[in-house]
């Protein structure tokens, strides 16, 4: 009599059940990771994850258009942070220069840096960005630092100076011209942003960081970057609204180049709202 052959294990229910169990475990791990507390200070000084850089520098054009000039958490329109100035022309090899002077401890700078990274990435490419948080006693806001970063663009030059570190110790010194600009146009306050000597931040009724930095409170780098795909998120409304103002001001100095950044209806509309000297 022929003996019944044993069915191999892989023909049984184990692979089917195992697959479902593995998928459920993996999803459970994702949910666990997603609900971890916001990023800790242990990440400070580490290179920003490529995924986060990508989320901040490749925000969908539909989101940029939907945000426009952005809104404050109370629903009112984000005030234009930029005023027209008559400072010395800032250029590098004939290209308009965007000058940023700030401190790593400063929460307003932390908020503004996110917008600057987004806006200036429409004209060029950042590399070497590192995680930073504003001082523990000053919001402890997750952000990035320009210290040690590089920026390349065929249209503009960017000079990002972190004058003081997270503990308010001297970090990157200013040259005489920069010190002069900070004191005369920036009122010795951080952050100071000068766009080719034509526009500077600090317009009346505007927020020092361009938008209400409290929308970033308690958020991790990942959560801030991830929010930028949702045009209705208060983070996106502030961060991208401010970035659109910066973009419009820069476009004024580049004569609307490149078209991909400047020739959109949103930026053209904001350009018309920018003050003139």
């Amino acid at each position, binding site marked *: 009599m022929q003996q*019944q*052959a044993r*069915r*191999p294990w*892989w*023909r*049984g229910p184990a*692979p*089917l059940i195992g*697959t*479902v169990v593995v*998928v459920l475990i*993996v*999803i459970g791990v*994702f*949910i666990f*990771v*997603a609900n971890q507390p916001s990023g800790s200070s242990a990440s400070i000084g580490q290179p920003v994850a490529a*995924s986060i850089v*990508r*989320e901040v520098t*490749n*925000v*969908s054009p*539909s*989101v940029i258009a939907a945000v426009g000039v952005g809104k404050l958490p109370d629903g009112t329109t984000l005030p234009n942070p930029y005023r027209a100035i008559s400072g010395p022309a800032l250029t590098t090899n004939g290209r308009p220069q965007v000058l940023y002077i700030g401190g790593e401890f400063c929460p307003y700078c932390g908020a503004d840096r996110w917008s600057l990274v987004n806006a200036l990435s429409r004209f060029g490419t950042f590399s070497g960005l590192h995680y930073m948080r504003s001082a523990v006693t000053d919001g402890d806001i997750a952000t990035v630092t320009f210290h040690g970063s590089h920026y390349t663009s065929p249209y503009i030059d960017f000079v990002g100076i972190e004058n003081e570190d997270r503990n308010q110790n001297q970090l990157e010194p200013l040259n005489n011209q920069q010190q002069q600009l900070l004191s005369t146009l920036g009122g010795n306050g951080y952050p100071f942003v000068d766009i080719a000597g034509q526009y500077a931040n600090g317009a009346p009724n505007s927020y020092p960081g361009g938008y209400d930095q409290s929308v970033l409170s308690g958020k991790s780098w*990942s*959560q801030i970057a*991830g929010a930028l*795909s*949702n*045009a*209705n*998120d208060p983070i996106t409304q502030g961060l991208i609204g401010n970035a659109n103002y910066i973009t419009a001001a820069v476009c004024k100095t580049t004569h609307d180049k490149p078209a991909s950044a400047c020739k959109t209806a949103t930026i053209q509309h904001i350009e018309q709202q920018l003050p003139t000297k």
Partner: protein
Amino acid sequence: MAQRTGQTPATGDRNQQPARVSMRGGRDLSALVVMALLGLGISIYLTTVHYAHVRLVCSAGGIVNCTQVTTSVYSVVPGTKIPITIPGMLWFLVSGGLALAAWRVQARTGIASMRLGLAHLAWGVIGLITVLYLVYVELVRLHAICEWCSAVHVLTLLTFLVALYRVQRLPDPSHAADDKY
């Protein structure tokens, strides 16, 4: 002793011919074709919405937020402007094609093709890995879920499970010489 599947015995005489196709085998292939059509339909809808710049029919607030997911940086193939729904369409197209090819072979010869079964299973593995990555993006990176995407993910998982189930019931690989397809 009767086999569970009604197809080729798992062991036995090597000269034994593979069994005829069972009704259940036909149902498996039908299920694979139906799931491919459903997935294809959803992918076409999401692709159309992407290019037409119109709003998706779905929730847009809280953890369930289709718009946030489908307009995120992860909604396109990395380094391109191609929406990932297009690779999704191709995946379901190939999946449906594999099922129809297996059906045709079975209808013509009465023999289930192990090669097509394994190809479908391998295709399912690729789909499942991609789906796990996309679920990671939704839950960890974006903190938002898209209903349409979740429907596609479930269809992909079910396609993999049915493809696996089919391979489990196909003739023993030692009879591969019988499988000319």
